[in-house]
């Protein structure tokens, strides 16, 4: 891999909502992330791509206030910040939709929608939930996002994965998020459902939110992304504007053409040339355009 140094953030007139500079995190001796930089602008989607264990979740946990970075800087509207807890990040307008969606399957959709931020009416000891209003808002908010639920009273566990994902996104949008972080929202979904979720990502972006979209699928990232941060084993492979990289290059970077090559060689030694797996790997490595160096250089300019 050639481009291991992160590209500097693109200069803009207004400060980005969130900017990270050379951020890193170690879990004791394990260096999970180091020297990663990128920006998140309002009305734009920043995609974070990388293989399993690349450090994607670690990266967003820093943004979400779950971890404090061991190195580097986190800037909110151009000012350095340090989030002490997820609540602090949430109060700053950074909402995270985790891989597990943070929903309680047995509870109704509307209760999940307002969980932790319930609407109440009445005073003192007689303060009770404003059930009617919460149901109404849940229904309209989901409707605004294009999700038509027959019954907001049904347990959220009964919704499909994509619908649940959309409820979680709608919830973050409703509660005034300025930055929306989505951890692999399409990982467990089929093609159609993934498309629906991508649509909501685009819709949230159009509503002016800065979106951080984590995925290991470049085909999901490329259509909606404005900027692509590539991670590999805790380091940055580059931070590209959409104009600087094509889908093919992105895919190749992701798959790591050089790595596929070496894997094929390794297997060849162990399994012999004729192994179909080796041949398959080799042909796959050949098909990938060698763009790693090229794209990396362009990004640094």
């Amino acid at each position, binding site marked *: 891999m050639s481009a291991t140094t992160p590209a500097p953030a693109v200069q803009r007139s207004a400060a980005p909502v969130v900017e990270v500079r050379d951020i890193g995190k170690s879990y004791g001796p394990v260096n999970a992330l180091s020297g990663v930089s990128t920006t998140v602008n309002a009305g734009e989607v920043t995609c974070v791509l990388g293989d399993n264990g690349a450090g994607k979740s670690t990266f967003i946990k820093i943004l979400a206030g779950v971890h404090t970075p061991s190195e580097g800087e986190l800037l909110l509207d151009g000012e350095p910040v340090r989030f002490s807890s*997820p*609540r602090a990040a*949430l109060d700053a307008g950074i909402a*995270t939709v*985790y891989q*597990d*969606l*943070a*929903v*309680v*399957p*047995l*509870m109704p959709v509307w*209760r999940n929608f*307002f*969980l*932790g*931020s*319930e609407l*109440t009416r009445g005073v003192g000891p007689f*303060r*009770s*939930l404003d*059930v009617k209003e919460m149901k109404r808002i849940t229904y309209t908010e989901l409707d605004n996002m294009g999700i038509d639920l027959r*019954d907001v*009273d*049904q*347990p959220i*566990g*009964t919704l499909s994965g994509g619908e649940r994902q959309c409820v979680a996104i709608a919830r973050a949008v409703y509660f005034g998020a300025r930055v929306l972080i989505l951890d692999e929202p399409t990982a467990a979904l089929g093609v159609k459902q993934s498309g629906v979720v991508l649509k909501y990502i685009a819709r949230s972006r159009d509503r002016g939110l800065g979106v951080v979209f984590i995925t290991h699928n470049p085909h999901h990232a490329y259509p909606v992304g404005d900027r692509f941060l590539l991670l590999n084993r805790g380091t940055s492979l580059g931070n590209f504007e959409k104009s600087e990289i094509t889908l093919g290059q992105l895919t190749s970077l992701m798959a790591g053409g050089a790595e596929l090559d070496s894997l094929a060689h390794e297997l060849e030694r162990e399994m012999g040339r004729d192994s179909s797996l080796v041949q398959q790997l080799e042909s796959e490595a050949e098909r990938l355009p060698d763009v790693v160096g090229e794209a990396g250089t362009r990004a640094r300019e």
Partner: protein
Amino acid sequence: MTTTDIVTVGNRPRLESRPLRKILARPEIGALVAALAVMLFFSVYTSNFMTLSGAGVWLESASTFGIMAVAVALLMIGGEFDLSAGVMTGFTALIVGVLTSHYGLNIWVAVLVSLVAALAVGALNGFLVMRTGLPSFIVTLGTFFVLAGIDLAVTKLITGQVAIQGMTNVPFYDSVQPLFGSSIQIGGGTFYVSVLWWFLATILATWVLLRTRAGNWIFAVGGQLNSSRQVGVPVLKTKVGLFMTTAGAAWLVGMISLFRTSTVQANTGVGQEFIYIICAVVGGCLLTGGFGSAIGAALGALIYGMVFQGITFAQWDTNWLRTFLGAMLLLAVFLNHFVRTRAGGAR
């Protein structure tokens, strides 16, 4: 949350498409049917079960278990158990007994001291469970035995006996007694104030569960702890609050038994913690948390009270009660499981 629970959930919307189905999907429906069946059986089988005097007896029996079952149901919905709940009813009564009859403390003050002590033990249970991350089953099993030992040893040490009697001689006893132990006569039946406490506890718990933020949090922490934490639910406060509520209910029941009989045994309440759990489960609470109902638990306790007294009215050996309870528990769990797996397999 186990997969079968999700399967149950997955089948709920289809069940709920019609109002009748919606009612059938409620957690307390099984207990309601069972309660009606038990009531019908003893009404027909014995002559004095369905009289005012009979009703006074089984309602009184159900009331103290009902208060505890409702509190334990909240705790179970919140995903925890409290095995010290039974012994706590004796613990609180003994505190009042010892402080007043042996140290001459004002009885009102003693009652309050006892409440504070109960809440402290509840808070301790909660903090131990949350701070260590150990299952509440084990932690409260520990406090259960600690308290059971204290009850016996300290009572014996101070009074030289294993019971406290003669509470009626304590000054101002009569001013507290009506609150917990009074009764009224209606058509030859004796109805205790504890029945009123039971109804109040059930109504309050139902309102809290379904219509307050705290109730939302209880379902959430029991249903999916991590998710609750991520969306900002005060997890520690909710869980500790639940343990304190259970302890508070145990105090109420302790006072009720003390002021109704004016005596208290050092082993009061030992072994009853399981009956509370049985009532809650029969009332529709899931052992895995996140699902259940206070009304269901109250109905579970009603079944217990009716069977307990019904067996006496029928002049059977009262030892059958436990056998019945065990069978009832198994039936409730099987029914739950059957509905789930059948619903799951129908896909």
